[in-house]
């Protein structure tokens, strides 16, 4: 229990700080690297939440694919690779105010709603049961039964995104 | 066709529409055919009107509609296609048909720039459908639809064939009236819901309206008032009128003055008062007050004008003030007078606008300061103008008198529950208004007809009356005189129905 809490503390700190660096750093490439930290920490948090499969996908898709894609984007758009003072616009303060106000509101309602609610402890539950109940198998079953429609739809969605992105991004 | 009675009203409404569609397929170059189609259509519609006049049961009690047709239309909102006429609608319906015939006749060689007779005549026919429909509709939603149908053709008529400032005038007309009808439709809906009526039929709503709380009734009446008062137009909602009239082509002005303005007053008599009699009693002093303000105000406005057409337009504000005063008394006298006033104003002011149009055709201006000596240049037209001026200022023996005098008379003794003192004061003000009316009309007549023609026209040949003008005007002039001498022609038709309306108020 304590270990989990310590892990959470470390990961949460890493996530928050890295996230803040993502939106404040003056170096585009650094931002991408901080993003990797965020995504990886979040993936680790998923494991804390017993969602190992999602954690794996997170690492694979996000860190493996999306960040790489973004880095390609950075390169292709010939962004300054070093420090760049032009990365922020002049409504920074407005953005900050909105973000802080939003954070305040969210924190308030979250605390109001859940207060000290604890996550149900899974200590006594066996690994196998957990796996059967909420493991990747269960998730897979659900996707191909209950969530069959969204799944099929997402396939079309990916195809469309692919086709469209090619048309838009290709040079002609 | 065995049972023409059943389809007579629908024919009267939709025949012009058919004519308009026919016009669409005639090639643009073939103007003769276009005119002929338009004329035949209006004549055929008028024929239906004559049939209605002949078959109408004048002795029937005022609470029954005649030639009723009741068919499903929009079930979802409990609105049905109900048409029917009584003694109040009949004269206005026939007037509308009649004026349309004359307008088409007059158009024969008077197409305003940019010409295009096809579109122009089609718009007139569309207008006729809307106007006829409004006068026969007995369902509020149907009424609303027809009430609005007239907007578009008139908008285009003013905007395309109008004078220099036509775009401003047309949009003003459009926006103003639309504002009124938006409030009006809200009130219709409120009537429906607050009273819990079974349908939008006027008869149903009249029965259910007593269930509405008095305060709410007042509010709903206020909405109806705004909707109709703008159309009338009553002071202070009148400012669209002078612009619209001044800029509209002659035919548009005639239709506007003769029929469109009547839609508002008709709405008061047909809808507002029978359905909400109690609220009408509470509102009457305000309506009456605005009416007499309108009478004086319209007259003062006329005195300030330098343009003949604008002057006539402002005179409408004053004349409709008399009509509204009559309605505000909520008595049988007053409402009879109002219906008479509506018809009379239609004939007389329509005629005045015809004249203004013909004068404009000849002199290319309506500036009073540049006119003069019409009696020398075109004596027949000049005397007809004089005749109309006299009719307009309410000379006994001509139609205008019967709209004015009984209205004044009725103001002496308004319906129960309405302040007598106040209305007697209104009566005096209205009587003063008759003098002002004489003032501005004679002044106008003096400036246009008397004296020598101004320098610029003194050597220019000005043709006198031409056949389309005779054809269009003589019937009007005769009617003005006949109705003036024997008002029973109209009172005889209206009184039963008016009695019924008044009975709702308890008078």
């Amino acid at each position, binding site marked *: 229990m304590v270990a989990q809490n310590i892990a959470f503390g470390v990961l949460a700190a890493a996530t928050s700080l890295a996230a803040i660096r993502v939106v404040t750093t003056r170096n585009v490439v650094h931002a991408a690297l901080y993003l990797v930290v965020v995504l990886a920490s979040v993936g680790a948090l998923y494991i804390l939440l017993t969602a190992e499969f999602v954690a794996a996908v997170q690492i694979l898709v996000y860190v493996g694919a999306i960040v790489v894609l973004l880095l390609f984007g950075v390169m292709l758009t010939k962004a300054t690779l070093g420090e760049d003072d032009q990365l922020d616009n002049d409504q920074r303060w407005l953005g900050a105010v909105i973000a802080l106000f939003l954070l305040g509101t969210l924190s308030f309602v979250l605390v109001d709603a859940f207060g000290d609610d604890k996550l149900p402890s899974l200590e006594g539950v066996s690994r196998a049961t957990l796996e059967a109940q909420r493991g990747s198998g269960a998730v897979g079953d659900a996707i191909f039964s209950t969530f069959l429609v969204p799944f099929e739809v997402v396939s079309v*969605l990916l195809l469309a995104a692919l086709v469209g992105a090619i048309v838009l991004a290709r040079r002609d | 066709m065995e049972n023409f009675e059943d389809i007579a009203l629908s024919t009267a409404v939709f025949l012009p529409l058919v004519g308009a569609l026919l016009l669409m397929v005639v090639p643009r170059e073939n103007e003769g055919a276009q005119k002929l189609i338009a004329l035949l259509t209006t004549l055929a519609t008028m024929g239906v009107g004559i049939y209605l006049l002949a078959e109408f049961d004048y002795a029937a009690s005022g609470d029954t509609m005649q030639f009723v047709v009741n068919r499903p239309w929009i079930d979802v909102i409990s609105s049905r296609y109900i048409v029917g006429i009584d003694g109040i609608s009949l004269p206005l319906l026939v007037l509308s048909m009649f004026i349309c015939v004359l307008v088409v006749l007059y158009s024969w060689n008077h197409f305003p720039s940019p010409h295009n007779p096809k579109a122009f005549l089609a718009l007139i026919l569309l207008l006729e459908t809307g106007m006829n429909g409004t006068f026969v509709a007995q369902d509020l939603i149907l009424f609303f639809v027809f009430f609005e149908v007239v907007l578009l053709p008139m908008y285009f008529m003013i905007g395309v064939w109008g004078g220099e400032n036509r775009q401003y005038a047309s949009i003003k007309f459009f926006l103003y009236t*639309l504002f009124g009808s938006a409030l009006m439709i809200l009130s219709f809906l409120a009537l429906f819901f607050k009273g819990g009526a079974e349908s939008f039929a006027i008869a149903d709503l009249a029965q259910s309206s007593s269930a509405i709380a008095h305060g709410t009734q007042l509010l709903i009446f206020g909405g109806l008032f705004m909707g109709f008062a703008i159309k009338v137009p009553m002071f202070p909602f009148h400012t669209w009128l002078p612009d619209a009239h001044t800029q509209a082509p002659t035919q548009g002005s005639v239709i506007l003055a003769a029929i469109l303005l009547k839609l508002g007053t008709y709405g008061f008599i047909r809808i507002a008062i029978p359905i909400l009699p109690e609220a009408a009693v509470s509102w009457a002093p305000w309506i009456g007050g605005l009416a007499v303000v309108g009478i004086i105000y319209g007259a003062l406005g006329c005195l300030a004008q330098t343009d003949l057409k604008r002057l006539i337009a402002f005179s409408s504000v004053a004349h409709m003030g008399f009509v509204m005063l009559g309605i505000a008394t909520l008595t049988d006298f007053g409402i009879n007078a109002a219906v008479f006033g509506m018809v009379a104003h239609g004939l007389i002011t329509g005629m005045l606008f015809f004249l203004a149009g013909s004068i404009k055709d000849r002199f290319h201006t309506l500036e009073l300061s540049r006119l003069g000596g019409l009696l020398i240049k075109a004596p027949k037209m000049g005397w007809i103008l004089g005749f109309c001026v006299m009719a307009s200022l309410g000379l006994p023996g001509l139609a205008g008198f019967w709209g004015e005098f009984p209205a004044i008379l009725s103001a002496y003794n308004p319906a129960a529950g309405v302040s007598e003192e106040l209305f007697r004061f209104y009566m005096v003000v209205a009587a003063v208004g008759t003098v002002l009316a004489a003032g501005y009309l004679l002044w106008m007549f003096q400036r246009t007809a008397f004296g020598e023609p101004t320098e610029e026209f003194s050597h220019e040949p000005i043709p006198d009356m031409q056949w389309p003008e005779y054809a269009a005007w003589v019937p009007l002039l005769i009617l003005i005189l006949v109705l003036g001498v024997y008002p029973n022609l109209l009172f005889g038709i209206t009184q039963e129905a008016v009695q019924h309306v008044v009975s709702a108020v308890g008078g």
Partner: protein
Amino acid sequence: MDVLSGPVAGVFRAPDVDYHAFAPELVLVAVLVAVLVVDLVLEGRGRRLVGGLAGIGLLAAMVPVLTLAVDGANRSMVGGAYVVDDFALVFKGLFLIAGYVTMLLSSDYLADDDYYEGEYYFLLLSSVLGMMVMASSRDLISIFVALELLSIPAYMLAGWRKRDLKGNEATLKYYLLGVFATGVMLYGMSLIFGITGETVLTEIGSKLQGPGASLPLVSLGIVFVIVGFAFKISAVPFHSWAPDTYEGAPTPITAFLSVASKAGGFVALMQLVFIGFLGRDDVWQPMFWVLAALTMTVGNLIALRQTNIVRMLAYSSVAQAGYMLLPFAVAGDLAKGPGAAMGPMTTYLLIYAAMNLGAFALVLAVARKTRSGEIASYGGLFEYAPGLTVLMSIFVFALAGIPPLGGWYGKLVVFKTLLDANTPWAIVLGVIAAVNSVIALYYYASVAREMWMRPVPDGDTTPVRVPAGLTAALSLCAVATVVIGVYPQVVARFGDLAVFSLLP
């Protein structure tokens, strides 16, 4: 038909699929794959073929919609997450027809300017597919995915004019704001899910009504979800993308966005609000009140100042969305229950589709000659294209709500709903709406004024050649607009049908 219930631990059982219920979507999927394949095989030689295929596909998908409608049974699948009922069918029909009209508008547009065609149709069909799915989706995940499917192809279609800077800008703005809105919506959905532990709307509905559900967190969740779709329907203040995107996007796509995509947003909102958040009118009613009032007013006021016809129509469609939101704002107070607000909204959407598509079709037709989107370029249209002028007048005045042209009935039923609610707030909203309809008239009429009353700006009065596809689209829309106006019963019926059968 008992379809699969929730996930069952252990043995996986392949779900029974009711193919009849899925038939419209399956047909579409087949067609869009076919389009892609044909385009690949023919390598751009069969442009017409591809377009024809797509159009036929849309019409073909209409067949199962009709058979389902005739069948009439409500088909509820996967635990209520996917439902085919009259509501869904009415909107599927609408999406298919709107898609078909867009197709008609597109064919000559694409051919004229040499854009990618096969991919265009493919994306368009994908988007329509997303909408079809949306109409039946009754759980959060399906709604989310359907929303993405209808949006993402639309993002890209908006930028189809690749070399055009405005086109780039259109797609960028649409995309970014769309993603922002999605983020907000997803956050909201996560909260809703967190409170109820459910994704199916009916379950959410019953849980949110229970005791202890009046948490601020619930309000926040509902607000965030609604914001996501308020973006989609371009309600003020989430409308800001719409004018810019509409202006920069290819005009057929603009028509599609303003009609089909907006309808998709409304469909989702109706499902969420009237099933999922049914008991929480304390939250959404005030929100919709403000949204509706703002949307109408701001849309109309800014539209007054537009000089570009497409931009003006964009603001006009913002304002129209405001009228459509009105029933939401009073739904909780209706005597017959909140569901009674759906009929008017559906009715309005159907009418709006006809007249707005018509207006954009006309813009396309005129732009073929004038090559301009400025309202001033419509000057004197009546002189050389009287037929188009009459049609455009029909469309703009229908949008303005002048009887006997379609739009009036939509406004009427919406007003009727307001008065039915019979609360002071409803009346105030009614008055705001009434005033707005007058303001709106001004800019609609100014288009008519330009066409009828102004001279031709460049003096060029050669007639406008209108290709067959466009003619078909125009006639379709015009006939629908007029017929609906004269005999509103035709759409009123659909409005009545489109009410969830499972409403309490």
